[in-house]
């Protein structure tokens, strides 16, 4: 493994002390080092937001693009340069509000690139307005009487858009986060990774229930392919499927692992059920992974069997005539 420090740029990191972004950046450096990705073939592209500052702190090629458009930028970049290793860094406002259209099309097309979506359920950089993932009723500077309308469930949105890979991780569990980044990078197409990230200034504790030691076990279900859905202290709780309705059960009530919902990453229907578990018990890990050819590989195949034309051929076109003296 390479040295994570070699992947850090010389720029001073400027997030608020205590911000969850630090952890994500640290894991990202580590993952790049672990994968030993050549720096000159790696490009990190972001939109605008606190989270989107990340490319400046990574010593590879990087683009801090415009608000919501990293996905569009990357689509053009990888079509032109399928040889590159491209990562997308975005926020909940960036990806799901202003950039929603580009995101759904990127997922539908299956543009190969991991998408690290830093979800803090708030607009950080603009100092604390509600975002499309803020829960209904959230009080913020722009919603003093509480936010109206229901929030997006990002994994459900991604699946709805046809994403071939959907996962969730959190800033407070570095090891799992690294694992998810590696899985996302391995994936053959768009890899949508939602990362619960604490904005300790404008939305502190939005995810405490799921991320903090004292409550995590009771609320976070870590998914493993082929394994039952377990949680609770010493995995004493499980989830079973009652038709299409997930029900939590206590293993001490006589349930065995065989009674539980066995996670299958390849099952699109169950992936939707997982994505919609948006109450007090939420899944973490790979919700869905499907192998589908990437947009750039399809595009490459299209062009590779067509011969390039010479300037002469282009200029002449299909029909010419000659004027003599």
């Amino acid at each position: 493994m390479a040295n994570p420090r070699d992947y850090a740029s010389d720029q001073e990191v400027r997030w608020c002390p205590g911000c969850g972004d630090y952890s994500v950046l640290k894991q990202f450096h580590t993952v790049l080092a672990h994968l030993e990705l050549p720096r000159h073939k790696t490009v990190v592209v972001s939109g605008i937001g606190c989270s989107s500052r990340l490319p400046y702190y990574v010593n590879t090629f990087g683009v801090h693009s415009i608000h919501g458009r990293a996905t569009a930028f990357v689509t053009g970049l990888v079509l032109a340069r399928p040889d590159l290793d491209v990562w997308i860094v975005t926020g909940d406002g960036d990806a799901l509000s202003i950039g929603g259209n580009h995101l759904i099309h990127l997922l539908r097309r299956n543009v190969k690139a991991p998408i690290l979506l830093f979800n803090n359920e708030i607009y950080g950089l603009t100092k604390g307005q509600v975002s499309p993932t803020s829960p209904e009723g959230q009080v913020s500077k722009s919603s003093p009487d509480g936010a109206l309308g229901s929030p997006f469930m990002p994994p459900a949105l991604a699946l709805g858009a046809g994403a071939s890979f959907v996962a969730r991780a959190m800033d407070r569990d570095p090891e799992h986060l690294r694992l998810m980044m590696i899985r996302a990078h391995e994936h053959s197409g768009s890899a949508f990774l939602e990362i619960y990230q604490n904005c300790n200034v404008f939305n502190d504790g939005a995810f405490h229930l799921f991320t903090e030691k004292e409550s995590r076990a009771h609320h976070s279900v870590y998914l493993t392919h082929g394994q039952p859905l377990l949680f609770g202290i010493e995995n004493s709780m499980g989830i079973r499927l009652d038709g299409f309705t997930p029900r939590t059960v206590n293993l001490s009530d006589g349930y065995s692992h065989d009674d539980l919902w066995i996670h299958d990453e390849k099952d699109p229907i169950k992936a939707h059920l997982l994505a919609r578990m948006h109450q007090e018990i939420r899944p973490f890990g790979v919700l869905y992974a499907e192998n589908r050819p990437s947009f750039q590989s399809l595009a490459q195949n299209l062009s590779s069997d067509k011969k390039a034309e010479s300037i002469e051929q282009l200029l002449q076109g299909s029909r010419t005539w000659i004027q003599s003296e």
Partner: protein
Amino acid sequence: MQSEVTVLFAGDSGDGIQLIGNAFAQKSAEAGHSVSTFSDFPAEIRAPQGTVPGVSGFKLQFGGESVYTAGDKADVLVVMNAAAYKKYAGHLKPDGILIANESGFDGRNLALAGYDNGAEPLAEARASQRVISVDIKKNVQAALLELPLGTAEKNRTKNMYVLGLLAWMYQRPAQDFEKYIQEKLAKSKNVLEANQMAFRAGYGLAETMELAAFKTEVSRATPAPGVYRTLVGNQAVALALMVAAKKANRPLFFAGYPITPASDILHELARHRNSDCLTFQAEDEIAAAVAALGAAFGGSLAATASSGPGISLKSEALGFAVTLELPLVVINVQRGGPSTGLPTKTEQSDLMQALYGRHGEAQMPVLAARSATDAFETVFLAAKIALEAMTPVMVLSDGYISNSAEAWLIPSEDELPSIAPPMVDGTPADGNPFEPFVRDAFGVRPWACPGQEGLEHRIGGLEKEKNTGNISYDPANHEEMVMARAAKVQAATRFYSPTQTDSGNNSGDLLVVGWGGTYGSIKAVVEKLQGKHYSIEHVHLRHIHPLPEDFGNILRGFKRVVVAELNHGQLVNLIRSTYLIDAHRLTKIQGQPFEEAELKSALKTHLQAIQHG
């Protein structure tokens, strides 16, 4: 001998009007005429048959050297049905010839065209005009009697019958056309035979009907010897992009979102798609512009095209392109605006948008194409400027140019200017970090692409420290960078050819300044006035920003300056404010090109005012 002739073909969308228009234009060019054409497609996709909205038109002017546009009022109007007549009757010269398909004027067709019960438009036309009316349907059915085809299929050859008639009128050898028809319709033997027979029937009709009086001889041009092809405006744009990319040794990446009248650029490039020419239909114009920038970051010649509303959506990305200092060619095929406006009609009302329609201090070179073939040169030059000066460049085309066609003397590869973008090779010495914003003598930064070892760097929309490109909020640095970007754009004048009036005479009474697709109309009128010994000249601007350095002197060589444009007066304001001269406006905002008569009378008024001055 007539010096030039304008023919307008019109019929229902299903009548094959564009096919015979193109055939006639092609053969006219090959016969040595100067030719210019314009296709007027119906705005509706499938308007009901026989109705006015369903009419498709094709106009062409051919003749000697003085053919600069597809013409305005027609010498010959061909109408396949009553609706076509209703739409275009007003486009025929009072002494022009009407060729009408009688079977398209039966009761049903008259009703579909919206004529009152009992109306007899053909009879009325006969009273005041020269009319050749033939029951084409009956004649083709008779001519094709022996062929094993259905009535409907036989009817479909009506257009060839018309083509035959025209070929005879203008004394073209029948074999030439028969060969052309063979190339176009080689697929089915019966259909080919039917079309050729219909063509011959039309050709032969003229003799039997004693139409000798309509036989016309038209001047030919003396085109420079060489190999020619036809170029349609949008096709010229696509071709220039592909050729420029090859000249620059860069792959082409084109992203677009469908919009009339720009879509054909995407279609044309998609047809040529290969590993050197990538096309991408994006989810919207924002994505098209941003994806193009992504490809530019990756080292492609990136381009995007749209029309007014779509260009508005791209404007945020254009500001980004300005600050990234990456090459990008943006083509705006202007149409009537604002908003959806007149989507299929021509206008020049996006000049201010091109110059100023961005946030921040965000200059970029702006060029305007003047005709279908000039679109090739203009877009090629735009690509050269974008690549060699590392800047987004805007090219203005318009609805008229997009659908018009001209014969084009094909340049050889070597005649085209070279394009040398500032690619970086090698890595910085002594392991120093690469500095992406160090400028050369023209203020141009180097272009380093991902994949190049040792050149890793980060760029973005935040203001950049000079040289290093690191984020900088320093006030003085911001001013310096704004000025550096502006100076770089100003330095684009090094790519310009000298500005000249059409005749090369840079002084006199009246100077008519134009830009874009009005070139031919202005040129034709100015030449006619010169022929009447008026002191009048025409200069047509290719470069709107930065304005050419030699333009001011030309303006000052004249007693009066008139700026003719299809908008409410946009270039005129730029000229007034830049040169502090009392330039006059001559404008039209009807979605239509200038007509000869209106231009002439407006210019005469100015000439008289100078004389009485």
